[in-house]
């Protein structure tokens, strides 16, 4: 009976807006099936977590107050007095971290499967942009509870921005809203976190999804050469599978949010000395640790500046990857890129490990 109802509504809409072309496209779309099929889920997982973030973020907006005087108290109010506030906040914090992780896994899987080769270059470019936006959302959001950890982590993070040559000081002042982390910082971080970055994310995401839908999923080089191609219909088969995965992720998220609730921490005191061993969030740690190991001076250049420039160059390299990897363009493998990818993963993991367990200077 529900099917009849759905059909009736569909016809009503179709009569007015001719959606059959679009829906026809969807029903025809297929997804290639091969041994690396499982990685196709990662993009959807990241999207799901993003939706969770937007929903919990909107709920938090109902009670959060973005000033230095009230931020911490408002978060305390949410977690202690608002019904299910503790849950909304805990989910928002956990989902943020899971989303960053998922974005990185999605990045590396598409890297190794060379999904960025033509005709999908711009999908990769928008994807890299999305990664930077997601990390920006993480960085700006982390300050908002205005607790000790977030205050000092932001202090360290914005300090690094100052190391950019020429524009560094100005950039740091723009980020901080002044010379120091203050009330001015929290309001602009709030603006970035709640408006600027989400709008940018949604725009790029829209493009990214349209491109994926239009061009279909990329096939890995190994199966692209197979004469016999197994496929699966996108709607409803792949989509339903996607939903199963999303449900499992949701279950995991709930377990983490309830069994390991996110701490409130201590309210930030701008006049207190920096606590020993302060670190940024885990997804920035590999960069943070790298900068620690660069010597203070390399020839006549400031070590930190070189490090920042290095990261900048890596970022540019990441975005332009489809245009750099000319072998992939010719549907050929190049071991250099594979080794580079593996090395990057090991490097990031190792640096992160050292940041937590190495000598705490």
């Amino acid at each position, binding site marked *: 009976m529900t099917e009849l109802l759905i059909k009736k509504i569909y016809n009503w809409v179709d009569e007015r807006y001719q959606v059959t072309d679009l829906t026809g496209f969807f029903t025809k779309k297929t997804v290639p099936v091969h041994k690396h099929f499982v990685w196709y889920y990662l993009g959807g997982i990241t999207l799901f977590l993003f939706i969770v973030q937007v929903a919990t973020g909107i*709920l938090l907006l109902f009670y959060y107050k973005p000033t230095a005087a009230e931020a911490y*108290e408002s978060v305390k*109010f949410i977690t202690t007095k608002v*019904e*299910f506030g503790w849950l909304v906040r805990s989910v928002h914090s956990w989902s943020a971290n899971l989303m960053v992780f998922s974005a990185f896994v999605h990045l590396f899987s598409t890297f190794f499967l060379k999904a960025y080769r033509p005709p999908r270059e711009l999908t990769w470019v928008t994807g890299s942009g999305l990664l930077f936006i997601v990390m920006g959302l993480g960085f700006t959001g982390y300050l908002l509870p205005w607790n000790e950890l977030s205050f000092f982590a932001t202090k360290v993070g914005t300090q690094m921005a100052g190391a950019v040559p020429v524009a560094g000081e100005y950039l740091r002042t723009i980020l901080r809203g002044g010379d120091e982390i203050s009330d001015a910082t929290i309001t602009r971080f709030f603006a970035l976190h709640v408006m600027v970055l989400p709008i940018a994310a949604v725009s790029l995401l829209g493009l990214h999804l349209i491109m994926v839908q239009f061009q279909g999923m990329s096939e890995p080089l190994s199966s692209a050469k197979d004469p016999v191609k197994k496929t699966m219909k996108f709607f409803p088969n792949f989509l339903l599978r996607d939903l199963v995965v999303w449900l499992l992720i949701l279950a995991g998220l709930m377990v983490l949010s309830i069994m390991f609730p996110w701490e409130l921490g201590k309210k930030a005191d701008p006049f207190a000395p920096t606590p020993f061993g302060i670190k940024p969030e885990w997804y920035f740690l590999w960069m943070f640790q790298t900068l620690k190991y660069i010597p203070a001076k390399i020839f006549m250049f400031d070590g930190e500046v070189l490090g920042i420039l290095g990261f900048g160059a890596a970022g540019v390299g990441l975005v332009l990857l489809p245009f750099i990897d000319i072998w992939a363009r010719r549907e050929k493998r190049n071991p250099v890129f594979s080794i580079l990818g593996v090395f990057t993963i090991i490097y990031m993991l190792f640096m992160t490990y050292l940041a937590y367990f190495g000598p705490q200077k």
Partner: protein
Amino acid sequence: MEQTKITRREFLNYVLGGGILALLGSAGYPIVRYITPPKGVETQASSVVAAKVGELAPDAGKIFKFGDKPGILINSPTGELVAFNAVCTHLNCTVQYDSRAKSILCACHNGRFDLNGKVISGPPPRPLEKYDVNIRGEDVVVSKTA
């Protein structure tokens, strides 16, 4: 007879539908409770309803909870309502209103404060933190001074 037997497909669809509804319910209920403003507490964690209008007679005081610390609300002999942080600035005992001396006393070491919170005598080194008092309808609302 085949038509009355539910096919596996239809059965699955029913269970699926039921499951989706259950999930939506268990997500929707917390959301609805969340956006309902909590009763009895100020959305500001830094203000509190200390008493009802008329509850305190002139020349009397009352200890109330402010956050996780005690506060003291005093109806002065002239009928003016004042409120302070009730934690003595000497060694953190809770102060009280002394209606005989018309001042605030800390019984631990005889520290005394006037009705502006300033130290009159005894060991306290600093005045008591003063709070703002406002009447809102039936409520006497005490809040941190901006």
